[in-house]
Structure formats: C-alpha cells, structure tokens
C-alpha cells in the first residue's frame, strides 16, 4: 500500500497530541509520561506522528521537496507504533501506515539514507543486515546438535540475524536448549535460513523486502511444519503482522515466550532452582503492540470515512504481554516489579526502524531514557525478549556506566531450570 492510500488518515489527524503521551489513564508520574522517543528527543513537532502527517500531505501534494531535514524527520523514528496505538485508543486512523508509507516513498524516489542503502544491500547479498558472511547465522550452533527442519519436524526454530561475537549470539542456543529439555520436535534451517526482511521493510525498501517475504513464505510453507517459533521479537512481528499480507501461512507463528509459557502451563517445563532476583520487564514493540496478527481488509471509504466492509483495526490489544510475565512469575524467588510504561504503553528501546544503524546516538538516548525508568525501581536487572532490545539497552548501559544488568528472558528461564548464574 502506498502513502497515497493513507491520505485520508493523514488529513484527518486532529492534531490532538495524544500520539506523544502514554494512555493518560495509565499514567503514573509526570516524569514518565511521554511515549514517543522521537518527539521527546527532538522536540520540534515534525518529529511527532502528527507532524509527520503534515509532512506526508506536503510531500504528496508537492509542497515540500526532499532535503536532509525531511529524511531526518522521517527516519528519526523507531517505528515503535506507540503513536498508532495511542491514537487508535480513540479513533480509527492508520498512523503507522502513514509513517511506513513515507519511508516507502523515500525509497521509491531513491532518496534513502546511505546507511540504509548499505543495510538493504547486505540483506540482499548476505541475508543479514551487517553484510557478514552467511555462515555467521549458524555459528551459534557450534557444538550443539539440532536437526535440519527438512528432515521433518513439527516446529521450525527460526534464529534470526544475530551478529557474530555479540552477546545476543547465545540466544538461539539457549532457546533450543530449553525447548530440547521439553522434548520438542524441532529443527532449524541452518545456513538456508534467510533474513526475515524486517529491517529492510522497516526502512521502507519494498522490492528486496517483498522478495524475501515471498521466498520465505514459500520455503516455510513447504516444510510441513505446524509452528514457527522464534526468539527474536522483530522477526516475530514480521511473520505475524506483515507476512500474511503477502501470502497465506499454513503454520502457526509463535514467539519462544509464548511457547515456553504454554509448556509451563502444561507442566512440561518445571523450574527447579530459586533465583533470588528482583527484575523488571521491558515489552519489545514488535512482540507487544506491533505483535498482533495481520488482519486482511479490502474495501472503500464512504461517508464520514466509514469503511465498507467494516475494518478490524489492530490497536495493540492482543499483543503478547502476559506470557513473558507469566514465565517470570513462575520462576521461584524471582520478583517482578513493573515499570510505569508497560505493555501497550511501553517506551521503545530505541533500536527499531533503522535507527540503530543510522542514528546510534538517538538509539542510545532512547535506551537511556528507558534505563532511567528502570533506575527508579531499584531492581537488579531488566529482562526483555528481543535481541535488538537487549543489544541497544546494553549498549546504553555501558555508554552511561549504568550498573544494571540486561537479561534476555531465556537466561532466567535456563537459570531457573538448571541453576546457572545470571
């Protein structure tokens, strides 16, 4: 869908500023009241969703040319979807689609940032956004035995693109160890695993992204799996919310936290060890408010913008919020203390939307703001379940000298199962 398709949404933005704040009903302090990192950091209204609606209309109508500030305003945004969720609490406008449409337009007119261009090239050539050799995707398997899914398995474990040498490299291994402990029939694609296309899609590149999506759909559908499980929230978000727009998936998509939660509920995983820890949990955007299933709609607008047939809007209601919390609450000794901005009101970690690649300082600023919220709780650590979140939050902690440990939930699950130190 192009930006023109969302002209109505940009036009009818009432400029109320709700896109900048968390749901007011859930506000717990004036300090942690905002939800839009871009607007909070850059202050000019252009850096808010409502400002970007004006940008969109101006670009569509030819009232604005392309310049560095335009790209700055478009891309200094993590596409976290908070604005969309806050807006949709009250009205039916596709704010996020306008933001995506702006990025598509950038690529259509070949005005993309150099960093994003390189990233897309890397994805196209090497199946990962870091232009590293393909083999990097399997390095984490060294010494770990898991079958290729083509040998036949109920579950495909999808590892995602993880940079070699980074701490997040451990996550697929951890996930597999946990699932293996529960005797799940699973396999991996190994070197044949392609990038999910999330980052190229998020920055607005469509040709490469759609090529990846279609090919992946074909590959996955041909595997005879019942379920695809991933430990990366960004990949999860793609498979759940974007892929079905381009082809039917004949399998279920789950994040590993959903799977583990089910295993715990079914009694197939039991925690033997007590973890004497006080932690808080960070909701990854692509698992939470952006983790709802795609809903197909085709139709037209009539009077007062009514959609015929009626459209079911994705408002962040059915994101994956409880499963990770269930897991943490079932680990003996672990105390979960919630931050102020959680679930659909979560403050983004700062990594998404191509920001980490193009605007590292903004990514770190956003993560630092999240760490301020953590600091106010007096906890031992922050837990998340997305390698991008973990990486960016860790980078920010290191950058600021913050003494806060960043965990993936898999670390705590594994420790709870086997008594490993966290």
């Amino acid at each position, binding site marked *: 869908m192009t930006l023109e398709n969302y002209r109505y949404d940009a036009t009818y933005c009432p400029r109320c*500023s*709700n896109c900048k*704040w968390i749901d007011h*009903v859930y506000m*717990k302090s004036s300090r942690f009241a905002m939800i839009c990192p871009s607007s909070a950091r850059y*202050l000019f*209204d252009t850096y808010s969703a409502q400002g*970007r609606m004006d940008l969109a209309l101006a670009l569509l109508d030819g009232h604005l040319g392309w310049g560095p500030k335009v790209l700055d305003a478009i891309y200094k945004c993590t596409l976290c979807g908070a604005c969309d969720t806050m807006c949709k*609490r009250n009205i039916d406008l596709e704010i996020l689609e306008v933001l995506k449409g702006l990025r598509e337009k950038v690529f259509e007119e070949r005005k993309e940032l150099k960093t994003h261009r390189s990233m897309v090239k890397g994805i196209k050539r090497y199946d990962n956004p870091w232009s590293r050799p393909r083999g990097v995707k399997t390095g984490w398997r060294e010494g770990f035995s898991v079958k290729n899914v083509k040998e036949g398995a109920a579950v495909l474990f999808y590892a995602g693109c993880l940079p070699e040498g980074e701490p997040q490299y451990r996550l697929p291994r951890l996930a597999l160890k946990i699932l293996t402990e529960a005797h799940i029939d699973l396999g991996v694609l190994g070197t044949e695993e392609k990038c999910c296309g999330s980052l190229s899609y998020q920055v607005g590149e469509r040709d490469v992204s759609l090529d990846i999506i279609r090919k992946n759909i074909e590959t996955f559908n041909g595997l005879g799996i019942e379920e695809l499980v991933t430990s990366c929230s960004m990949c999860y978000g793609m498979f759940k919310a974007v892929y079905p727009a381009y082809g039917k998936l004949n399998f279920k998509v789950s994040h590993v936290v959903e799977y583990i939660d089910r295993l715990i509920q079914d009694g197939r995983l039991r925690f033997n060890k007590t973890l004497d820890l006080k932690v808080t949990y960070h909701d990854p955007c692509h698992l939470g408010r952006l983790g709802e299933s795609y809903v197909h709609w085709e139709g037209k607008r009539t009077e*007062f913008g009514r959609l015929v047939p009626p459209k079911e809007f994705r408002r962040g209601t059915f994101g994956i919020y409880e499963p990770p919390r269930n897991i943490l609450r079932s680990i003996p000794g672990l105390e979960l203390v919630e931050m102020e901005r959680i679930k659909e009101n979560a403050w983004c970690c700062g990594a998404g939307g191509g920001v980490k690649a193009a605007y590292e300082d903004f990514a770190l600023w956003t993560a630092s703001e999240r760490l301020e919220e953590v600091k106010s709780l007096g906890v031992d650590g922050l837990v998340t379940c997305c390698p991008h979140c973990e990486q960016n939050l860790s980078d920010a902690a290191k950058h600021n000298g913050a003494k806060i440990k960043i965990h993936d939930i898999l670390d705590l699950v594994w420790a709870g199962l086997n008594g490993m130190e966290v």
Partner: protein
Amino acid sequence: MGFPKIAYRALEDVVGPEFVSSDPSICIAYSRGGYGTGIYDRGKKLPGCVILPKDTEEIQTIVRIADRYKIPYIPVSTYFIGFCTPLRSNTLMIHLRRMNRLEIDEKNMSALVQPYVSYSQLQIEAMKRGLFTCATMAGAQISVLANHISFGQGQLTHRLGIGSRRILGMEWVLPNGEVLKTGSVGIPGAGYFWGEGPGPDLRGMVRGYSSNLGGLGIITQIAVKLFPLPKPCVPEPQGITPRTTFALSPDTFRWYMINYPTPEACVNAMYEISKAEIGAVVMRTPSLWRNIRKATSKEEFWNLYETDKVKIEQSKPNVIRVLLIGFASPKQTDYEERVLKDIAEETGGSLRRVPDTGSADCFQPSYTNCAFRPGGLFISTKLGYDSIDHALIYLKEGMKIKRAFMPPLLDDKEECGWICSYDFGHHAHGEITSYYELSEENSAKVLEFEKQCILQDLEMKAFMGFQYGAYHDFTGPRMGDYHLLLKKIKMALDQNDLSNPGRFVMIDPKKEDKDSYYSLMNRD
C-alpha cells in the same frame, strides 16, 4: 521572500542552532490546527521559522528580536486549536515545548506550571498528593497553562468554575519584551499563591470567556488551583487499549444519570441540584456523546447511532450526568445521594447509578480525539455563557438553524445540546457540537452555519460569550462597542501587531487575509 536571515542569526544566538529552524519540513508541522481545520485556519500561511526557547529570559529576547525586525509570532504549546495557525507570512512559531516545569504546593493547593505540562501529568502528580485538577473536556493531553488562559471547560466546573477562576499568579512576557508579574508574583519571595491585582486585575486582559489567543504576548508560567480529594488516591487503571479506564472508590465517587422527558425538566433539575449545593459534575449531555464513549471503533459508533437515532427521535431523552464526591467523608456521598434522589423524584426524573469508571473520563479525559470518533470533523457553536435557562433558550433556537444545515451536518436528533453548570449553577455554558465531512463546500456551509448562529444570538438578544477575534467587528457594535476597546488594548500593548496578528482582534486586514476566517465572517 524567506525568513530574514539577520533575524534568524539573532534567534540562533539566543537558543543555539539546535533549537531553531526555518527549514520548511520543520515549519510544515506548525501550519495546521486540528480543531477548526478548514475554518479557523483558512488563509493560513506556512510559518517562516520555529524556535524552542527554554525559559522566560529567552522568550523576552526572542520577542524583542521579533519586534526589532517586525516579525509576527505565535506562542504554541500542545497546539490543538486552529487559531494557532499563522495568517501572516514568515511568522515565527514560538513552541514552548521545553518549558515543562511542574511544582505542587500541597498545603496551599496549587501547582506552578509552565506551558508544556499536560493535564494528565498534573493530574497524576496531584492525585498522589490528595489533590486534583479540573481536567478539560479538550483532553488530558492538553497544556494546563494554555487551557486555563483560553477555555478551561471541564466536567467538574459545577464545583470548580471555569478556567479563569482557577488561575492564580502569572508571569507574562508582553509584546515589548517586559515581564509582567500579576498578583503575588510581583512580590519578591511571595510566590504565585494569589492572582488578583495589585489593584485592577490584569488577568482580565488574558481572557474573557475565551482567550486573547496569544494576541497580547506570551504567558510563561502560572499557578493554578488544585482541589482536595478526600485522601491521596492514585487510581488503579484497568483494561487494555482501547478499553482502558479506572474507577475510584464508590464510597466517595458515584456517578448517576437522570433522564427527563423534556429539556425544560432537565434544566429545572439542574437548578435544584445547584441550589442544594451538591454534586461535582452536573451537565446535560447530548445523546450522541454517549454513543461516542460507548463505542471503541468508528463502526461501533455508527451501529449505535443507526440503532439509537430512531429511539432518540421518539423518546427524546434529556439526560443529566451527575458525579457526587464525598469530600468530607463517605457520609457526605450518602447524604448527597439522598438529596439527589429527592430531587429526581420531585422533578420527574428517572435516576440510575452508572459505572464508576466514568471517573477516568472525568479526571483523565481522552475526549479530544474521542470526539473525532464518528469521523469527519466537528465544530462547536452557540457557546454562550450566562444562566442555565439562557443556555436552553439559545440552544433550542440554535437547533433550528442547525437543521437547516443538515446536510452537511450530521443529524444527531438533538433538541438542544450540551449544558454544563458552573459555580453551583450560578452560570452555565451551552454548546452545540456538529459533525461534518471536510470539503471546501462543506467548510463554506459550516462557516455560514456558525455565522448564522452568532447573528441569531444577536437578533434574539442572547449573550454569545465565545467571542473569537473574527466576530468582534460585527458583534462589537451591538454590544457596547467593546471591540473598539479590544483594538485599543491591542495597539497599546502590541503596537506593531506582531503577537498572533489577526486572531485576538483584527487591526489591519491585509490583502493576504481575504480568504481568512476573519474576512469570510465579516463579508456582507
């Protein structure tokens, strides 16, 4: 011709390059208001520059630079209303985004706020301390300062009064760059606790029933009244978007609806409730609003509308919404409930208790964009401010005009509109909200509808309190020539007509104004 470079350099020297920009992609986001799109922003221009000052001293310097180079400017904070859109070329938008100081004096029940503090921020900090603010119907995301100096209608006005009643001391940068401190602020060390005087109260120059629309300089901080809750009370929110809400303890907060057969009966009951000095919220709500709040999607709203409109036409519900608060103790709530029941019975109303989750909409309202749920746009007309009876009279007459403009206005089957009590029923404001779709043709019709409403008020000798800048030249001559005083005041305080020109009062219509809201209202 672009924004003058010499002025730009001077502005950059004040705030630093990071906080000023004349790039069109920055300015474009300041060229359109939300409420009043297509009407109040007619004749709008792209701003020439946007600046983000951090404190009063920077604002003083900015205003002096603007004065030196004759640059029009507009102060904006949360920028919802279309009156913030520039009418002059190369306007400097002074965005007060960085000024977000909030301090609460718990003992003396006030809060010092700068322009970028939202109602929701103030509300939650106040509630933790056993206090609360009268959040505006415009929404919890609205600037507290901007709303207090502009409108300030909230559900709780029955007890707490309109925005202007709730302003204490103020700090105000005049168009000549001087800082005016009103009330106790002018006394070193006295603080912001009191707003009147010394002597004649210059807060009277900030607003009437509505604002001076930034036409007399920039208010940089004010103290606002807070009000006591029975005890500190941080609400426990429930639900997930879009159905989020909270309830407050039913010992202390109770919501009711009373249904009457006629608006006259409704109004009589409002008077009785006021005389009994009970209640915190007392207002007659249009039927459409109930469907807007019940629905969680546009489709749901339209389904409810289609189902209800026949019912409404037949039964003509006239509903008063009441909140009782037991400020002194739960026994006060019980007492007020008994009194309310007595009144309902005596006045022929059918009373029922409704869920206490109405408190979320009252204390942390999301009304603004909730009001846009039906789709299209809405406009409020007939905004008079006098007695409850007066509201009913002009609203009923106003509905006759509204019917003549259906379409493009949505037929909401209303007999009158929203009537909201203030100061225990000593005053009331009435309002007709009307929905329509955005188009050139519709905007022209809506403009005409608005004008007809005002002319009707003048003809029937009602008081239309909501005098915007565009009306003064044709309402003034019929209302004691007040418009001439406004112009003199404007010229005395802003002789170069730079502070949001053309909005507070039109001094010198220019060629570029020919399509503006002002010109269209004053044609013929």
